[in-house]
């Protein structure tokens, strides 16, 4: 018998309890999508490790970049618009540095008749001179420094032999004005020191920096004075203070670790922390990480960046490294973006891809010091006059990818002077002014090839029950410069010239490096992991430009930050 609703009833009844079983991979796919959505959906109520990680990443990046910025004033700020080599004479203003003066060219008759005992007596009160270093500095800072410092050297011996020790207590301003006048006379007329001393009556008390100690002990080093350059050129105000990248990176790393520690020990109960060394295992929770899991493809992708780096270079022009290696510490800021394809086989992860790096190397040296180390004299029984002078420079030469660089922070002058019956031996250490600014900018593409070996998996009780994966990696990089520019500003202290160079830079390089990276993976979802990789790199570069340079360098420590995406293989 026919019923009007028989078909409807049939279907309705039959499908009422129809509950087929979904496939196993369906929840994983949903979870993956949920993780992705929840990650990008910010809500205070759901503050989790991802946001903490994002904040850490941001802070580390900002701290690295910010620290660099604070420590280094980029020479790129220098408004230099002349790309060709040229010489720019300095303006003859009174506040500009003048060529340094060799103290040995100015001798003082007062040094010729003194015995060792007299010298000791003369030196001793000078050490007790109640002139504080701070006051000296405050007075000195307003005066032409070169002249003052040189005059300080010139007058050391006269200071120590002067009987007018009461002058030690004269106001420092008075001494400074005398020295300033003397300096102007010296600068303008280039007259003999004797005349200056006679005209300005410079005595022991006029010397703000009295030598201290005897024998070979060194004095404390005064603060390097300022050198004023033409107003059109912006240069660092002070000598380049050491930028400690270890500290820079340590700040970020410490911050990260402290946050991690807080969250895992005292922090949110949702994140139980349990460290134990267990072998890698692949489960539904732990995706394909150093273990076979059929749910995941062996392929994954990394997108990573290393915001800044620091390098020490040992390099030579000589491809067979016959020359002594030169050492330079180099401030470098770089931004690196790397897309890597990963293939995993058991405990090994093979990586290759492409990397773009924008790098800027800075060299800023503005240095001027004057140190008197020793002064000894004793009687000899000889007649006649003889002067022997020898100068030793200590420093290093740095040949960057672009052009040669030299830096001589130390100059030792030794002189032996025989006056009638007294031998005076002076050992004077001085550091001449050298200003050198060097700026290289590179943009290059590389093909990195890395091999990673898994060493440790730490169960990490995140909401995804993930693991903290640690591996070591090594590899090589090959590439070429797509853009390379060099800019060099050099001020010759003798001639008072500014030289600007825009050298040609090489365009092809290959590099074999050993990367000591420890990539830490923090799972955000089964397929998406955060990468934190403290890196330290030893490299041998082979650079083809005008010639062939070989460069050995170490770079780091740095912190690489990125994302690793695992491909889910759906059934």
């Amino acid at each position, binding site marked *: 018998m026919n019923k009007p609703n028989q078909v409807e009833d049939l279907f309705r009844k*039959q*499908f009422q309890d*129809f509950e087929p*079983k979904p496939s196993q991979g369906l929840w994983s796919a949903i979870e993956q999508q949920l993780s992705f959505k929840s990650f990008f959906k910010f809500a205070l109520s759901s503050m989790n490790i991802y946001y903490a990680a994002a904040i850490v990443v941001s802070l580390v990046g900002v701290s690295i970049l910010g620290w660099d910025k604070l420590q280094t004033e980029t020479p790129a700020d220098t408004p230099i618009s002349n790309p060709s080599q040229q010489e720019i004479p300095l303006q003859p203003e009174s506040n500009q540095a003048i060529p340094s003066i060799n103290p040995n060219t100015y001798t003082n008759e007062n040094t010729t008749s003194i015995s060792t005992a007299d010298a000791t007596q003369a030196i001793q009160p000078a050490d007790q001179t109640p002139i504080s270093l701070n006051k000296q500095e405050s007075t000195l800072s307003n005066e032409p420094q070169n002249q003052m410092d040189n005059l300080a050297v010139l007058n050391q011996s006269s200071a120590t032999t002067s009987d007018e020790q009461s002058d030690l207590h004269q106001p420092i301003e008075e001494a400074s004005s005398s020295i300033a006048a003397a300096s102007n006379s010296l600068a303008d007329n280039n007259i003999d020191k004797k005349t200056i001393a006679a005209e300005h009556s410079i005595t022991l008390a006029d010397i703000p920096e009295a030598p201290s100690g005897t024998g070979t002990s060194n004095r404390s080093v005064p603060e390097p004075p300022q050198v004023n350059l033409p107003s059109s050129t912006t240069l660092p105000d002070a000598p380049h203070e050491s930028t400690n990248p270890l500290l820079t990176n340590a700040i970020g790393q410490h911050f990260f670790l402290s946050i991690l520690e807080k969250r895992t020990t005292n922090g949110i109960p949702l994140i139980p922390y349990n460290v134990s060394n267990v072998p890698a295992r692949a489960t539904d929770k732990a995706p394909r990480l150093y273990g076979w899991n059929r749910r995941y493809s062996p392929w994954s992708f990394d997108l990573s960046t290393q915001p800044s780096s620091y390098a020490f270079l040992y390099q030579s022009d000589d491809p067979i490294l016959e020359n002594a290696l030169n050492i330079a510490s180099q401030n470098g800021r770089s931004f690196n973006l790397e897309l890597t394809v990963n293939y995993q086989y058991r405990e090994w992860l093979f990586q290759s891809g492409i990397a773009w790096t924008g790098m800027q190397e800075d060299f800023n040296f503005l240095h001027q010091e004057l140190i008197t180390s020793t002064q000894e004299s004793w009687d000899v029984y000889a007649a006649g006059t003889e002067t022997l002078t020898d100068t030793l420079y200590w420093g290093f030469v740095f040949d960057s990818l672009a052009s040669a660089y030299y830096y001589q922070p130390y100059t030792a002058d030794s002189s032996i002077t025989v006056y009638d019956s007294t031998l005076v031996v002076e050992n004077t250490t001085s550091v001449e002014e050298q200003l050198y600014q060097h700026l290289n900018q590179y943009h290059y593409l590389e093909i990195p090839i890395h091999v990673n070996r898994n060493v440790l998996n730490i169960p990490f009780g995140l909401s995804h029950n993930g693991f903290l994966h640690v591996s070591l990696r090594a590899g090589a990089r090959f590439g070429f410069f797509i853009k390379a520019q060099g800019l060099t500003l050099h001020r010759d202290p003798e001639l008072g010239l500014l030289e600007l160079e825009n050298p040609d830079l090489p365009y092809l390089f290959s590099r074999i490096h050993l990367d000591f990276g420890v990539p830490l993976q923090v799972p955000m979802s089964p397929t998406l992991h955060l990468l934190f990789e403290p890196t330290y790199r030893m490299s041998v570069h082979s650079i083809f430009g005008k010639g062939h340079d070989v460069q050995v360098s170490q770079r780091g420590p740095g912190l690489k930050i990125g994302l690793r995406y695992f491909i889910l293989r759906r059934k």
Partner: protein
Amino acid sequence: MISEKKLIKACIHYDRKAQRELYNQYAPALLGVSMRYTKNSQQAEDVLQDAFIKIFASLKQFEGKSSLKTWMERIVINTALSAYQKDRKHAFHEDVSTLDHTLTDEEVSFEVSFTEEELLNVIRALPEGYQAVFNLYAIEGYKHREIAELLGIDTNTSKSQYSRARKLIQEKLLALSEIKSVDIIPLYPTKKKLS
């Protein structure tokens, strides 16, 4: 066992365990709904996946006027219809007029029973528009006006499509029942013994 209210609350706060629990509880039933609106199991799972994402995203809006299962079923149906409408722009349309001459006007009854899989195959064999209309009207209990709104068609179109779908289903069920009622014939006749 966690209560439904607590489960919903935990899901709203992105508690992955709770979400998994909700999934485990309702996924089979919802997959059953999804399978009726799609052509194969893969499509059904895709629809269910999208539906669950929507469910978790909009759980806050669940007011409890209907049961949670009903609310989720509606989301699954809407998701399936959206997917259908998206595909409809590109899909090949079977000419409905060519089907007319095959339809029977008489009501039929079935002596045999059908399995869920058989009925599912019958529904899935319908043209997509018919499939949706039949599901919505016959099984979910929607009215033609509501179906017309949902599918963006005219009410009369809904009625006529339902009518044709129903007839198609009857024919298919008849054919199926005939097959099922036929005695099993041995493939090879037994040899008679020679006397």
